[in-house]
């Protein structure tokens, strides 16, 4: 029997139903300490004083760490892509969001650690905070970072952008221009298992870190940067994780427990409470998307302009990447020959936002598809017809010039209609994703067409490409 294509049992099925699967929190070690954190109660403030002396002498406490204990405190989640580090592991002179980490205690019990956290003395000078990303450039708004409230992809260009085709001509030719605003909100990844880590300083100088990370090597890289250690000195243990949905790419519990385990010379476990998960961990970003479509009376989309603002929260995490990905997908499943898209990463005093299932595209899909239904309504056209007509065909090009080799929007729509009991006219039911021709190839779509080529990394003779494609 072939394994591929078969509904084989889960590899970990029996382990799951007997609770034999081991998650990070299920490991304990002799002498293990529990970590608890002091977090910012305010959205924006200068830290005037931070005194851990009393906390460090509380019963059961083995170590208290602040930013000065972290070998390299400020690291970025996108340094591998050349984006400057901006986020302190533990706050230094300021806090930029409610829940930001300031200090962490390791004690023999959770309760002792909690009590010791409550004994840390900290004094804030609150500052006005910035929350509405639409006002990022307004002169009366406070600045989240010393560089202002908008990230610059390039020194002279803040936005990630797409420019494709003659957008001005498309809007000049249009019969109707439909504009709308779409604002998907921030939500929690909320996996059942809270973020947890257990770090052990080994006698040979290495550090073993049990991690709930979704990306062991990625998290190991970030942890190594904080510790100023080569990654070879770290060993990440994990691979069995209680859900992630993007939230467990953020790497905070691992470096924090590593730093404090090295200081305390004891294993340290840190398991976030649900409240920390809900209030202090990253969320899916809130987005603001404005779309203007230049359309013809008979339902062709000639051009599209967009403005997107992405609420990154107080630090960058993975926002710049999310916004690039978002921008590439603002034409949705459709062929639009003229595109002008501008996407901005806006820093606010919200909790940093990061990856969540659909990363950057969920917001684009929501905005684009809701807008498509509106365009259909304005034109008095059936929403199925509008979609089927403009849907990508073989040889159509995306806003970032990807040539579609075999897009299946037409097929999925037709099958969905059938499954939902929607009776489409025979002309639509007969549509395929074959290269455009005849009535489906109006003049405005001719120039964007390309002939798809066989991919360099395509499988051949039942085996994958054995070498990279560059």
């Amino acid at each position, binding site marked *: 029997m072939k394994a591929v294509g078969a509904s084989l049992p889960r590899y970990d099925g029996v382990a799951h139903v007997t609770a034999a699967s081991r998650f990070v929190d299920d490991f304990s070690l002799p002498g293990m300490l529990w970590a608890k954190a002091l977090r910012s109660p305010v959205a924006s403030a200068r830290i005037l004083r931070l005194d851990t002396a009393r906390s460090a002498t509380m*019963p059961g406490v083995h170590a208290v760490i602040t930013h000065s204990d972290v070998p390299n405190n400020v690291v970025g989640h996108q340094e591998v892509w050349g984006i400057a580090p901006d986020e302190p592991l533990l706050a230094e002179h300021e806090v930029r969001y409610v829940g930001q980490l300031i200090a962490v205690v390791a004690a023999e*019990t959770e309760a002792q650690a909690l009590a010791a956290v409550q004994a840390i003395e900290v004094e804030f000078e609150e500052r006005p905070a910035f929350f509405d990303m639409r006002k990022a450039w307004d002169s009366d708004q406070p600045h989240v970072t010393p560089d202002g409230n908008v990230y610059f992809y390039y020194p002279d260009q803040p936005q990630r952008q797409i420019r494709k085709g003659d957008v001005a001509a498309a809007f000049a030719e249009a019969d109707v221009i439909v504009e709308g605003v779409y604002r998907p909100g921030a939500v929690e990844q909320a996996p059942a298992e809270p973020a947890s880590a257990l770090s052990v300083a080994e006698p040979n100088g290495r550090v073993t870190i049990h991690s709930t990370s979704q990306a062991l090597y990625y998290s190991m890289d970030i942890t190594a940067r904080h510790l100023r250690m080569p990654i070879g000195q770290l060993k990440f243990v994990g691979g069995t994780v209680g859900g992630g949905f993007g939230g467990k790419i953020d790497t905070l519990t691992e470096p924090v427990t590593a730093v404090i385990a090295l200081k305390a010379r004891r294993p340290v476990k840190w398991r976030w409470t649900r409240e920390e998960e809900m209030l202090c961990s990253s969320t899916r970003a809130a987005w603001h998307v404005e779309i203007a479509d230049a359309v013809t009376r008979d339902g062709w989309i000639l051009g599209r302009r967009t403005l997107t603002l992405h609420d990154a929260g107080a630090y960058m995490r993975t926002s710049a990447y999310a916004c690039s990905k978002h921008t590439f997908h603002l034409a949705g499943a459709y062929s639009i020959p003229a595109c002008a898209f501008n996407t901005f990463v806006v820093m606010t005093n919200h909790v940093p936002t990061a990856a969540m299932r659909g990363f950057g595209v969920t917001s684009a899909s929501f905005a684009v598809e809701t807008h498509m239904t509106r365009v259909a309504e304005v034109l008095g056209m059936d929403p199925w017809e509008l979609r089927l007509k403009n849907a990508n065909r073989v040889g159509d090009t995306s806003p970032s010039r990807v040539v579609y080799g075999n897009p299946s929007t037409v097929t999925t729509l037709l099958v969905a209609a059938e499954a939902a009991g929607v009776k489409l006219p025979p002309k639509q039911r007969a549509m395929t994703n074959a290269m455009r021709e005849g009535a489906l190839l109006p003049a405005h779509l001719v120039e964007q067409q390309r002939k798809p080529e066989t991919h360099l990394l395509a499988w051949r003779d039942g085996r994958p490409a054995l070498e990279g494609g560059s």
Partner: protein
Amino acid sequence: MLASRLAAPEPEVVVARSEAEAIAVFGDGAGITVIGGGTIVTPLLTHGAIWPERVLMLQAAGLDDISGRDPLEVGGAVTLAALAEVAPEPLAAAARIPDYEIRGQATVGGNVTVGGDLQPALIVLGARVRSAGAGGERLEPIEDFIAAPWGRLVLSFEVPRPLAGAFVQQRRRHSHTHPVITVAVALRGDGVHVAVGGLAEHAPAVACPSVERALSGGAPPREAAASVVEDVRPEDDPLASAWYRSRVLPVLVARALEQLEEAR
């Protein structure tokens, strides 16, 4: 390590074996934390939100009896599950408080003390609360009790039986979310009574005299329900805004009154 789970001095824990012992230990309520079912207090302990010096536990205090019919006598430590078995509408709404496991553990006393879903039902039924604390034992109308429940130990409830009752709740469908709005109505000998809860997080439920007056003046349910906004001052909370609560309350009150019509 295990013995000293709490870093602060271990609280003194008293498991009361009788009502009298519970009352004596509770005293005037100063410095004492009460655990009935534990669904409210235990997370506060776990997360270090409270560090009590003394804790009174009620599970063996004999406060979990239900007796009588009219009025129904319900002990303060009766679980929501047990109450749901015997209570008349709208108090039978206890069966709709999620979820099965919580109902089996949470107590009526706890629910009523923290602004829970049973308050409106008890108000419209004209229930009275017997409690202990500073100044000794007292029996008072539920509305008086919930206006200032802290420092009181709930011993029991006296719940008169109505001629008919109904209950409408709007809650998000997640089983654990607190209700956005709870409306209870009851027909008693002296007319129709209306109360609403869920006006804000932990806010006490209130009776709706404006609606009751309109009804006794002969107004039809929809018209009478509209005046509910004069009786309430809703607030924003994580589940709904003050605007929404005000906007939708007349609708829910009207629906409850229509259900009551059908029930009588």
